């Protein structure tokens, strides 16, 4: 059975000065952000902010210096990340590239691709989107149909990507296309490409989510030419590469901190002398928060040690998103306040914001069902 376990991790003492630096930076940059804005969590998009983060050396922290990185440890990166998320900083302009596109290029990209993209990412100048899902391919990613056919000098791509966050304000999309069809092996014949989002034939159409906001897009590709030097890794290895990438996507503190703004507002509302009921509810959430953080640090430690904590990352995301979703239910149960969009108290607005976004927590980056399938496989049941 299960080969998964969590070692108790520790953030080295030298990370404390870094933490202080990040807090001071955030205090200066977000000082006037109210709780409602912070509740947007890592959905916030602000290129100017990302450039400032890059200038501080906090993007691509672990990457080699020759590519603009800073050769710092995964645990130092963890500290920067959790501070940004706990403060509700608008990280999404650099976040995807820092978390997965950059590491993907470092691992599988050509030298030319690394030279061309990585240092610009570390400066906060390049924004990436991820093109995986398609209208008929959600959790069943291997069923994608967007095709890349070989043509002179590159590939011609036809198909549609969907739920592509921030495509409308990103520079590039790392997308998974089908380059060959093998009826006997669905996972073969998939290939990753870097796609310039300004390519001719590429159309981006907004999808407004239930909060009324525009993060998602549909990206339609009609005879889009992708030069051969924009293929990432090797042709046909897309499935393996994407699986490696998803471990990065599932392992971070963003998988339990998305609703922290609401927990803080709840405490603010009932402090300093909460009712017994409120104290019990808050204490329970704090116990979960502290334990999830320990689990997340443990995963960061495994990444730091060069291990592949795929299974542990799935566990943290499953428990973490459940916790994130519970917070709005706890607040509702305790206070019975009407959630709101833009009227009422700040607590009501933060509640409204978190409540509306909560369903997405256990969908994005692998649904709860997919994660539990991964864990069950780890237990030897599949």
């Amino acid at each position, binding site marked *: 059975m299960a080969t998964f*376990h969590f070692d108790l991790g520790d953030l080295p003492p030298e990370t404390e000065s870094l933490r202080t630096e990040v807090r001071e930076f955030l205090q200066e940059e977000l000082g006037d952000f109210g709780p409602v804005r912070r509740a947007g969590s890592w959905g916030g998009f602000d290129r100017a902010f990302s450039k400032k983060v890059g200038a501080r050396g906090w993007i691509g922290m672990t990457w080699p210096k020759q590519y603009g990185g800073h050769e710092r440890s995964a645990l130092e990166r963890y500290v920067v990340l959790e501070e940004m998320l706990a403060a509700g900083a608008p990280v999404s302009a650099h976040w995807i590239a820092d978390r997965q596109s950059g590491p993907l290029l470092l691992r599988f990209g050509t030298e030319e691709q690394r030279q061309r993209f990585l240092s610009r990412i570390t400066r906060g100048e390049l924004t990436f989107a991820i093109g995986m899902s398609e209208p008929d391919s959600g959790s069943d990613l291997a069923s994608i149909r967007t095709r890349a056919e070989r043509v002179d000098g590159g590939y011609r791509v036809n198909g549609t990507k969907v739920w592509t966050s921030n495509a409308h304000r990103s520079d590039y999309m790392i997308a998974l296309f089908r380059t060959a069809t093998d009826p006997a092996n669905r996972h073969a014949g998939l290939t990753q490409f870097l796609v310039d989002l300004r390519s001719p034939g590429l159309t981006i159409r907004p999808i407004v989510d239930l909060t009324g906001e525009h993060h998602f897009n549909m990206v339609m590709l009609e005879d889009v030419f992708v030069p051969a030097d924009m293929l990432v890794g090797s042709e046909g290895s897309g499935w393996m590469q994407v699986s490696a990438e998803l471990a990065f996507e599932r392992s971070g503190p963003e998988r339990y901190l998305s609703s922290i703004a609401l927990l803080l507002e709840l405490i603010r509302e009932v402090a300093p002398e*909460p009712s017994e009921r409120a104290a*019990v*509810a808050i*204490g329970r959430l704090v116990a979960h928060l502290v334990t999830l953080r320990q*689990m997340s640090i443990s995963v960061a430690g495994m990444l730091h040690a060069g291990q592949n904590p795929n299974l542990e990352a799935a566990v943290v995301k499953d428990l973490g998103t459940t916790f994130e979703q519970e917070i709005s239910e706890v607040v509702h149960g305790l206070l019975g306040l009407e959630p709101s969009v833009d009227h009422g108290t700040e607590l009501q607005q933060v509640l409204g914001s978190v409540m509306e976004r909560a369903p997405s927590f256990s969908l994005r980056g692998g649904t709860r069902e997919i994660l539990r399938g991964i864990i069950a496989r780890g237990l030897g*049941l599949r």
Partner: protein
Amino acid sequence: MTHGTDELQSILGDVVTRLFTDLVTVELRTAAESGAWPSALWQAVEEAGLTLPLVPERSGGAGGTWRDAHVVVTAAGRHAVPIPLAETILASWLLAEADLPVPQGPLTIAPVRRDDALRLTPHDGGWQVSGIAGRVPWGASAQHVVVVSSVDGRVMVALVAAGQARVETDRNLALEPRETLTFDRASVIAAGPAPERVPASAPMYYGAMLRSAQMAGALAWMLAQSVRYVTERRQFGKAIGAFQAIQHSLALLAGHTAAADLAAANAFRAADRGDPSFEIAVAKARVGEAAGLAASIAHQVHGAIGFTYEHELQFYTRRLWSWRAEFGAESHWSEALGRGIASLGAHALWPYVTAR
């Protein structure tokens, strides 16, 4: 269930696992439930040097750490070991902290409930103890009781012979002894002031920590057993573990088991580093919640056979239902956490959590 790369803990883990695997049988647990004291088991555990991990070597202990105790107590939970091992570890630590002699044999601690208090009074150059302590674990089988009490604002630890108390026997859901001890000016063998790091509430706090590790150990067993069962049990022509409904239940059980283990381990590490009161509250609240969920999932996947006395599962689930309520249930520790955080204010939550 070792944490970190400490080789000694890994060796210790192997030793306790081998010992419990050999000696803690279904027959032994069943006999213990009808009141038999498992003397051979106790003797083996004592001879292996597992009962006094925190007592200095010069006083006959192992001179180890709370992390060592964590290994032993988690294994005791994983094997549903029916002896007061956790209680003896705690009692002997209290004695060592107060520079008192540590006797051989099983020990227990009192009081173990928030509202119980025992009074120590000076008598004839020594001390006497009076009062009633309810639900004392193994109150009749332990040879000595270690009492913690405040005297004029000073925390004192006292060693009392078990025969000094009037005993009313009782049991918990798992049929582990939980006695009411009544002391009426009973004589104290030795008493001394506790150092500052041992508050009057130490039995509650450290008892909660030890129960957290026992529960985490029990959860680990239940997860392994549940996985084993669903891969063996066949219905509709296949192993029931092939059904997605079962797979997802066990994935959830695995998550809560991992969380429980880490929460408990974190408390023991904090105990080695300084004041662990926050981490203990987190552990008992988090592990207790996991315990309820785990018992429910494990029984559900085991079906009717898991509901029989004959099947081992009940030794674990009945313990979990008792242990999560002992030394403060989730609501008690959550309330303490919630009040603590609320008194600091919302702005202090994140800095506090990251500074621990």
